[in-house]
C-alpha cells in the first residue's frame, strides 16, 4: 500500500518536473511579447537581458499609431470578423440543416464535392479568387472583398450537419404536425438546440477571420483598407520603425483572443476538436 502510493508520488513529481519547464518554454514567446511591448526601442536593442515588463506601453502604442493607423485597422478587423462570423454561422448552419434533415435530389453529390475538396490547399483558389474579386468585380480594398470570399469555408457545414443529424426526429415532427413552417422549425427549434455547437463554430470562425493574413494582404493593400494583421505586417522589416510599437500592436491583437480563450475554453476546444470528428 505505502509503496504503491510512493511510486504514485514519484511519478507525479517526475511528471511535473518534465512538464513545468516545457510549459514555461511554451509561454516564453507570449511573455516576451508583453515585455517587449512595454520596453523603449533602445531597451529592446540593448545588450542586457530583460525579462520583466517596463512602463513604456503607451509610448510604444503612440509610436505604432505614428507608423500606421493601427486603431483604424483594428476597427476594420473587428467589424469584418463580427460580420463574417455572423454570416458564416448563418449560411453554414442553414446548409448543414438542409443536409442533415431533408432528403432531396443532389444531396449525395453536394456532400461528395464538399468532402472531396476539403483537403485541397487554399493556395489552389487564391489566384482565381484574386482575379475575380480585384479585376472582374473591381472590389479590391472594400469590406465585401474581406468578408464574402472567405465565406466558402465548408468546415461549418460539416460541423452543423453533424450537430443537426444527431438530434432525434420527434423534436421536429411534433412541430410539423402542428403545421409550423420549416424555416420557423429551423430558427426556433433547431438553432436553439444547437447553441453549444454554434458557440464553438462562431469562436473558431471569429478567430480565423481575426488572424487571417494572406487574403487580406493580397486584396486590401491600400493603407486605409488594411486589417490590423496586414497593417502590422507592413511594418516588419522596415528600417525606421518602432519595434516597441510593433510589439504593442502584437499584444493588442493577441491579448483579447487570450482572454476569450480563457473565458470560453470549452467551446474553443470543442471547435478545434470537431475538425477531427467526421
Amino acid at each position, binding site marked *: 500500500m505505502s509503496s504503491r502510493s510512493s511510486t*504514485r508520488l514519484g511519478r507525479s513529481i517526475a511528471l511535473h518536473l518534465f512538464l513545468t519547464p516545457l510549459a514555461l518554454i511554451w509561454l516564453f514567446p507570449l511573455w516576451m511579447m508583453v515585455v517587449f511591448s512595454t520596453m523603449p526601442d533602445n531597451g529592446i*536593442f540593448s545588450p542586457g537581458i530583460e*525579462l520583466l515588463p517596463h512602463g513604456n506601453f503607451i509610448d510604444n502604442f503612440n509610436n505604432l499609431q505614428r507608423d500606421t493607423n493601427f486603431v483604424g485597422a483594428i476597427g476594420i478587423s473587428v467589424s469584418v470578423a463580427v460580420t463574417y462570423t455572423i454570416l458564416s454561422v448563418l449560411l453554414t448552419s*442553414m446548409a448543414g440543416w438542409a443536409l442533415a434533415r431533408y432528403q*432531396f435530389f443532389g444531396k449525395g453529390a453536394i456532400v461528395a464535392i464538399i468532402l472531396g475538396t476539403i483537403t485541397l490547399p*487554399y493556395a489552389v*483558389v487564391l489566384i482565381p479568387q484574386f482575379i475575380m474579386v480585384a479585376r472582374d468585380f473591381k472590389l479590391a480594398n472594400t469590406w465585401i472583398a474581406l468578408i464574402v470570399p472567405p465565406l466558402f469555408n*465548408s468546415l461549418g457545414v460539416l460541423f452543423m450537419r453533424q450537430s443537426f443529424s444527431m438530434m432525434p426526429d420527434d423534436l421536429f415532427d411534433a412541430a410539423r404536425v402542428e403545421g409550423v413552417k420549416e424555416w420557423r422549425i429551423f430558427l426556433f427549434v433547431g438553432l436553439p438546440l444547437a447553441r453549444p455547437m454554434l458557440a464553438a463554430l462562431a469562436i473558431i470562425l471569429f478567430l480565423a477571420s481575426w488572424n487571417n493574413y494572406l487574403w487580406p494582404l493580397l486584396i486590401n493593400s491600400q493603407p486605409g483598407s488594411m486589417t490590423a494583421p496586414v497593417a502590422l505586417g507592413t511594418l516588419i522589416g522596415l528600417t525606421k520603425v518602432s519595434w516597441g510599437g510593433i510589439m504593442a500592436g502584437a499584444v493588442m491583437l*493577441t491579448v483579447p483572443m487570450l482572454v476569450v480563450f480563457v473565458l470560453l475554453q470549452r467551446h474553443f476546444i470543442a471547435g478545434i476538436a470537431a475538425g*477531427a470528428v467526421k
Partner: protein
Amino acid sequence: MRHQNATAYRFLAPYLLIFAVFWVWPIISSFMISFQATRTVPWRFAPGFNWGRLIGDPAFFNALENTLLILVIQVPVMISLALVMAVLLNSPLLKARGLYRFAFFAPVVVGEVAYSAVFRLMFNLDFGIINKLLNSVGLPKIDWFSNVTPAMALIMIAVTWRWAGYNAIILLAGMQSIPEDVYEAATLDRVSKLKQFFHITLPLLKPVIVFCLVLSIIGTMQLFTEPFLITERGGPGGGTETLGLLLYRQGFRSLNFGYASAVAYTMAGLAIAITLVQLWLTREPK
C-alpha cells in the same frame, strides 16, 4: 415530405452560391489558368508554357526542396511533441491542469503576424534574448537569419510552437473518447502504463494521429507567413523560400498568374497524394 427538394434548396442556396463561386469554380479555373500563357493579353492556351518552365526552374525545385525538408523534419517532431503533451495533460496525477493547458494551447489563438514579429526579435543576432541566453551559459551566438540551416531551424521552431498545442487538443479529444474500462481491465491485469500506451492508446488513436499528420502536412505545405515575415521573403537568398512564397512572388509580385497556378496545382497534387495515403492508412479492415 412532398416539398423537400424546394425546401432543402432554399436553405442551401445562399451557401452553395458562395461555395460555387469562391471555391468550386476557382479550383477548376486555376487548373485551366495553369495551361495558359498569361504574360501577354489576351491570355492564350499554351499547355507546355508554365508546366514546361516549372520542371526546368531551379527556383521551383529550391522551393519544393525547402518545403519538403520542413515537412519531413517539422511535422513528425511536432506531432510527437503534441502526443507527449496530450498524454501528460491527460494524466490523472497532474495538478493545476488548467495552467498547463493554457501554456500549451495559448499559441493556437496567436496570429501569424504577431508571433512572427516576436520570433524575429527573440532570435535577433546581437540583441535577441535567445542568443543572450545562449551566451550566458557559455554557448556561441547563432546567426539565425544569415545562414540557411539556422534559418530553416528557426522556421521549424516557430511553426512547431504555434501548432503543437493545436494538435494536442485534437489528440487529447481522441484519447478522452477511448472508453475508461479498456484501461481498467488492463490495470487489473497488471499491464504497465507504458505498455498500455503502446498497446491500447496508440492503436486506438491511429485514425486521429493520421488525421493530425495529414492536417499538418497540408498546412506546412502551404507555409507562407513565417518565411515571408520571420526570415524576410524566404531569406537568406532563397534559403527558406517555400512553395507558398514562390506562388506569392510569381502570382502577386510578378503578376504571372499562369505560372503561379502551376505552382498551386503542384501543391494540390501533393495534397491529393497525401489524402489518398490517409484513406489507405485508415481504411476499414474488410
